[in-house]
C-alpha cells in the first residue's frame, strides 16, 4: 500500500486544481456551518444555562392591584412550584435636558429570575439604593457608589447605586414594544426595594406582576408531557380566574419579549446554517464525483495494470476511496478550525449590540463534528462509487480504452426540420450532452445552486429592507409618533393636541389577551381614531379600510390562532374586566405589530371606551417638542424608526455578504472544475480541429456552446429554486414580533443573473485559453 500511497499523493498533485476544488468545497461547507453554529449554539447553550441557574420564570401574569392572597392562590395552583410577586413602574432619570426611562422593579424576595450582579454589591431585594442595568450604567457612566435621581408622578427620590446587574428576563431590552434596537441611553431598568418604591410613589406599592415557576417534569415521556401541557393551560386559566378584574395578561417565555427576541435570533441563525450548509455539502459531493470519475477514466490502464499485477479489487477501491477521504477530511478540519476565531467571533460581536448576557461563548455542538464526519463519509463514498465501475471486469478490458458508447438518435434529432437548422456547434453540444448527462447535470446543478444561493442571500437583504420601507413609509406614514404615559389625563391629551397643527391621528395601543374556540395568545391591539396615517393591505396588496363591521387581524397572528375571515375573536385588553367578541373582517399583511386592528367607531359600538395613548402627527418636528413633556413616554419620528429598523437589519448583513461570497466561490469552483474536466475529455477533439485548420475563435465557439447550454438550463432551474429557497428562509427568519415577506427587487435579480453569466463567460474564457494553447502533437499521440 506504500506505493499506492505515493501514487495517491502524486495524483493529487497532478490534478491539484480539481482536488483543491473539493478541498475548498468541504472547507467552506464546514466553515459556514461551524461558524454560524458557533454563534447560535453558544447563545443557546449559555442562554439556557443562565436561565436555569437564575431560576428564570416560566410564565408571567400581568395585572394591577394584585394582593398577597392572590399571589398565594396562584402559588397553590396545580403545576406551580413557586411564585414571586413584583411591583414595577417606569420612572425617569434626567440627564442634561433629556430624560431616560427606567423600569423599576421591587420584590420582597429574590428567588425567581435572579439577576446577575456585574459590579458592586450583590443584589438584595430589601437593600437600600438601586441596582442598575449594566449597559445603561455604562452608557451614562454611572458606577457603584454614585447617586442618581429618579422622578415619578411629580415626586423624586435619590438612590445610591449599589451595583450593576443583568436580568435573565431581559436578554434583549429595548425599552418599548415598538423599539427594535436597544437604546441604552434612553431605556434602562433597575431593582429597588419595596420601601424605596413607597418613598418614590408616596403610597404602598401594589403588585402588578407575578412570576411563576412551573414544577419540573420528573419523567420526560409523552404522557407526562401531555399532562404538563394541560397543566400549563390550566394555570393560565386559573390565574385569570383567581385574579378576576386584576388580571391583564399572561406570558410564557415564548412570548415574553425580553427572552423571545433572543431565542428568535438563534432560531433565525440556526435555520440559515442548516439551509446553506445542506446546499454546499451537496455541491461538494458533486464536485468530488466528477473529479473522481474523470480520474478513473484517465487511469483505466493503470487500474488494469494493477489488476494484472495481482492487486485485489478491494485494495484498488480502497486506494481511490482514500482520495475522497483525505481531501474532504483536511478541508473539513481546516473549516472547523478556521470558523470560530473568524466568522463566529465577527457574528457574535454583532449580536452584542442587541443582547445582554453575562458571558458570550462561541460553542460548537457535536453536530458540527457529525456534519464533518458526514461530509467525509459522503465524499469517500462518492469516490468509492466512481471507482467501482473502473475496477470491474477482467484486467485485459480495463487496460484498454473504454469502448465508445452505443449511439442512437437523441431526442432533438427526431425533429428533423429543427435539427437540420442547427449549426455543427449545437449538434455537437447536444449530442455530447446526451452522451455525458451526468457532467451536464452537475454543471446545471452547480449554476442552479449558485443562482439559488445568490437569490436567497440578496433576497434576504432585499426582503428585510422592503419590510422596513413598507412598514415605515407605506403602512405608517406619519411624521412623528408620540406615546403617552399610562397616567396621562384627558387634559394632557388636549394640551398635546394644541401643540400640533391639527393634522393628527389618535391611536389606542395596548397588549391584548386573545381567545378563540381553538387557541389563545397575547398580541397587540391598535384602535384607530379618525386620520390617514395607517394603511393596511391584504395579502394581494389591496388596501383595506377599517370599518364598523369587524376587526383586521395580522396574517401571522391569524395563522397562529388558526382563524379566517368571519371567524370570531374574544379580546380582553389589560385593565378590562371581561372579553369582548369581535368578528374578523380582514386578514392583513403587516410586518409589525402582530395583532388586531380596529376603528375607534367599531370599538365604541362594541361597548369599548376609546382611550388613545399614542398620537401620530404629520410634522416630524413635533417629536422634538414633545420629548420634554412630563406625560410623554416616548417620542420618535418615522425616519428614526426606519433608521433603527435598518440598523437591526444590519446584523444579518455580514452573514449575507458571506453567503454571497460563498455562492460566487462555489459557482467558480464548480464551473471551472467542470470546464477543465470537459476540456480534458475533449482535448483530442479540440486538437483534431486545430489540425484540420480550425481557427482559435472557431474552436472557442464550440466551447462556448457547451457552456451556454449549461448556463441557460442552470438559470432556468435556479431562478425558481432561489424563489423557493428565499420563501422558506424568510418564513424561518420571521419572529414573533416581525413577519417578513420574501422580496427580491428586479434590479437585484438582474444583477444576480448578470453576475452568473459574467462568471460563466470568465470561466469559459479561462478554459478556452487552454484549448488554444493545446499542443496538438502531445494531445494526438497514438494510444495502444
Amino acid at each position, binding site marked *: 500500500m506504500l506505493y499506492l500511497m505515493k501514487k495517491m499523493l502524486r495524483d493529487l498533485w497532478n490534478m491539484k486544481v480539481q482536488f483543491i476544488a473539493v478541498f475548498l468545497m468541504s472547507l467552506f461547507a464546514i466553515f459556514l456551518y461551524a461558524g454560524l453554529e458557533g454563534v447560535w449554539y453558544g447563545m443557546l447553550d449559555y442562554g439556557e444555562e443562565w436561565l436555569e441557574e437564575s431560576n428564570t420564570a416560566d410564565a408571567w401574569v400581568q395585572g394591577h392591584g394584585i394582593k398577597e392572597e392572590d399571589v398565594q392562590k396562584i402559588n397553590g395552583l396545580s403545576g406551580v412550584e413557586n411564585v414571586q410577586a413584583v411591583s414595577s413602574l417606569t420612572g425617569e432619570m434626567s440627564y442634561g435636558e433629556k430624560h431616560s426611562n427606567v423600569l423599576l422593579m421591587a420584590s420582597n424576595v429574590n428567588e425567581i429570575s435572579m439577576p446577575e450582579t456585574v459590579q458592586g454589591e450583590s443584589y438584595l431585594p430589601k437593600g437600600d439604593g438601586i441596582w442598575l442595568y449594566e449597559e445603561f450604567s455604562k452608557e451614562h457612566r454611572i458606577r457603584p457608589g454614585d447617586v442618581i435621581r429618579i422622578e415619578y408622578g411629580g415626586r423624586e427620590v435619590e438612590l445610591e447605586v449599589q451595583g450593576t446587574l443583568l436580568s435573565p428576563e431581559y436578554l434583549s431590552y429595548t425599552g418599548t414594544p415598538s423599539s427594535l434596537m436597544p437604546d441604552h441611553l434612553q431605556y434602562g431598568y433597575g431593582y429597588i426595594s419595596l420601601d424605596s418604591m413607597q418613598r418614590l410613589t408616596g403610597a404602598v406599592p401594589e403588585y402588578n406582576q407575578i412570576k411563576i415557576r412551573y414544577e419540573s417534569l420528573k419523567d420526560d415521556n409523552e404522557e407526562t408531557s401531555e399532562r404538563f401541557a394541560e397543566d400549563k393551560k390550566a394555570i393560565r386559566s386559573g390565574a385569570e380566574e383567581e385574579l378576576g378584574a386584576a388580571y391583564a395578561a399572561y406570558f410564557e417565555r415564548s412570548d415574553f419579549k425580553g427572552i423571545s427576541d433572543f431565542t428568535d435570533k438563534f432560531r433565525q441563525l440556526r435555520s440559515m446554517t442548516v439551509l446553506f450548509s445542506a446546499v454546499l455539502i451537496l455541491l461538494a459531493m458533486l464536485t468530488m464525483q466528477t473529479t473522481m470519475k474523470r480520474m478513473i477514466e484517465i487511469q483505466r490502464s493503470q487500474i488494469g495494470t494493477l489488476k494484472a499485477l495481482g492487486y485485489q479489487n478491494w485494495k484498488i477501491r480502497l486506494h481511490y476511496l482514500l482520495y475522497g477521504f483525505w481531501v474532504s477530511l483536511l478541508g473539513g478540519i481546516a473549516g472547523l478550525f478556521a470558523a470560530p476565531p473568524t466568522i463566529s467571533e465577527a457574528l457574535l460581536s454583532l449580536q452584542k449590540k442587541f443582547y445582554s448576557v453575562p458571558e458570550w461563548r462561541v460553542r460548537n455542538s457535536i453536530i458540527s463534528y457529525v456534519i464533518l464526519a458526514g461530509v467525509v463519509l459522503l465524499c469517500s463514498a462518492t469516490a468509492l462509487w466512481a471507482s467501482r465501475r473502473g475496477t470491474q471486469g477482467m484486467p485485459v478490458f480495463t487496460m484498454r480504452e473504454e*469502448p*465508445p*458508447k*452505443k*449511439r442512437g438518435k437523441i431526442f432533438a434529432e427526431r425533429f428533423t426540420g429543427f435539427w437540420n437548422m442547427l449549426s*455543427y456547434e449545437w*449538434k*455537437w453540444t447536444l*449530442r*455530447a450532452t446526451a*452522451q455525458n448527462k451526468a457532467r451536464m447535470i452537475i454543471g446545471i446543478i452547480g449554476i442552479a445552486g449558485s443562482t439559488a444561493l445568490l437569490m436567497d442571500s440578496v433576497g434576504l437583504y432585499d426582503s428585510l429592507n422592503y419590510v422596513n420601507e413598507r412598514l415605515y413609509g407605506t403602512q405608517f406614514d406619519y411624521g412623528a409618533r408620540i406615546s403617552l404615559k399610562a397616567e396621562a389625563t384627558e387634559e394632557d391629551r388636549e394640551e398635546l393636541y394644541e401643540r400640533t397643527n391639527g393634522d393628527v391621528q389618535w391611536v389606542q395601543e395596548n397588549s391584548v389577551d386573545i381567545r378563540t374556540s381553538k387557541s389563545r395568545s397575547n398580541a397587540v391591539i391598535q384602535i384607530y381614531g379618525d386620520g390617514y396615517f395607517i394603511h393596511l393591505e391584504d395579502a394581494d396588496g389591496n388596501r383595506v379600510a377599517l370599518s364598523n363591521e369587524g376587526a383586521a387581524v395580522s396574517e401571522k397572528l391569524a395563522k397562529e390562532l388558526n382563524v379566517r375571515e368571519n371567524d370570531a375573536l374574544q379580546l380582553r385588553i389589560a385593565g378590562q374586566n371581561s372579553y369582548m367578541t369581535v368578528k374578523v373582517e380582514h386578514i392583513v399583511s403587516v410586518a409589525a405589530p402582530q395583532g388586531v386592528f380596529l376603528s375607534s367607531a367599531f370599538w365604541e359600538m362594541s361597548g369599548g371606551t376609546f382611550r388613545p395613548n399614542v398620537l401620530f402627527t404629520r410634522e416630524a418636528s413635533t417629536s422634538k417638542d414633545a420629548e420634554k413633556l412630563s406625560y410623554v413616554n416616548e417620542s420618535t419620528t418615522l425616519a428614526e424608526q426606519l433608521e433603527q429598523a435598518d440598523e437591526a437589519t444590519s446584523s444579518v448583513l455580514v452573514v449575507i455578504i458571506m453567503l454571497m461570497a460563498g455562492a460566487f466561490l462555489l459557482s467558480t469552483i464548480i464551473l471551472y472544475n467542470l470546464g477543465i474536466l470537459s476540456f480534458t475529455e475533449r482535448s*483530442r*477533439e479540440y*486538437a*483534431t*480541429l*486545430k*489540425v*484540420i*485548420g*480550425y*481557427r*482559435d475563435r*472557431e474552436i472557442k465557439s464550440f466551447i462556448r456552446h457547451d457552456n451556454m447550454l449549461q448556463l441557460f438550463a442552470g438559470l432556468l432551474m435556479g431562478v425558481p429554486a432561489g424563489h423557493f429557497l428565499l420563501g422558506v428562509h424568510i418564513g424561518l427568519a420571521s419572529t414573533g414580533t416581525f413577519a417578513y415577506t420574501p422580496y427580491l427587487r428586479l434590479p437585484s435579480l438582474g444583477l444576480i443573473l448578470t453576475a452568473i453569466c459574467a462568471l460563466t463567460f470568465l470561466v469559459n474564457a479561462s478554459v478556452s485559453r487552454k484549448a488554444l494553447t493545446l499542443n*496538438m*502533437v502531445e494531445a*494526438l499521440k*497514438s*494510444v495502444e
Partner: protein
Amino acid sequence: MEYLNFQNVKRTYQTGNDEVRALCGVSFDIKEKQFAVILGPSGSGKSTLLNLLGGMDRSDGGQIVMDGMDITGFSGAKLTDYRRTDVGFVFQFYNLIPTLNAYENVNMAARIGRNPFEAAEMMKAVGLEKRMKHFPAEMSGGELQRVAIARALVKNPKILLCDEPTGALDSETGKMILSLLKRMSREYGKTVVIVTHNAAIAPAADKVIRLKDGKIEGIQVNDNPISMEQVVW
C-alpha cells in the same frame, strides 16, 4: 526546386534535463503528385517529420518549403491557415469526432476549405455513401479510416499526410486503405506522404525515404512501383 523541400531540418525536444534530438539535420525533397513513403523504426523521427511538414510543430533549424512557401517562419495564425487550406491529415487512430456522424465529420472539414469538394461526393469516392448517417462507434476500423481519408481530402489540400494510416488495422483492411490512398492521389492529383514502419509497402511507393535515429539513412526512387494489391504484408 521540388514541390516539397526539406533542407537540413532539425528538431530537438527538451524532456526534463534530457534533450531528445528527434531530427538531426534532415534534407530531402518530394515531387508534386508523388506517392512518398517515409520508413523507419519506432523513435526514428518519422512522426516528427510529418508533424513539421503538416504545420503542427516548428523546427529548430533548417528550412521547409512547400509549393514555393517557406513555412519555417510562419506565425501561429499562418500555420493554422496553412493546415486549413493546404494540408490534409490522416491519423493512425482516425481522430474522428464521436458525436458527429460520418457525413458531418467530413463536412466539418469541407465547410472551412477554400475550394472544397462536396462532402457527399467524397463519401461516395471512398465507398461510404450508404454509411453517411452512421456514427464512429457504429463503424469498423477500415470504415473509420476511410472517413478520415475523406475528411482529409474534402478540403482539396495540396498535400495529404498520413501517420501510420494502417497501424490500427488488420492486413487486408490495411492494404485496402493504402490502395484507396494511392487511387485518391492519382485521381485527385495529390502529393501523398505516408509515414510507416512497415517496409512491405516500400515497393509500392514512388519514393522511399528511410529514417534512422533522426537522420536520413537512404532515399530510394521506384521508377516502376508495384500496385498495392501486389504488396505482401
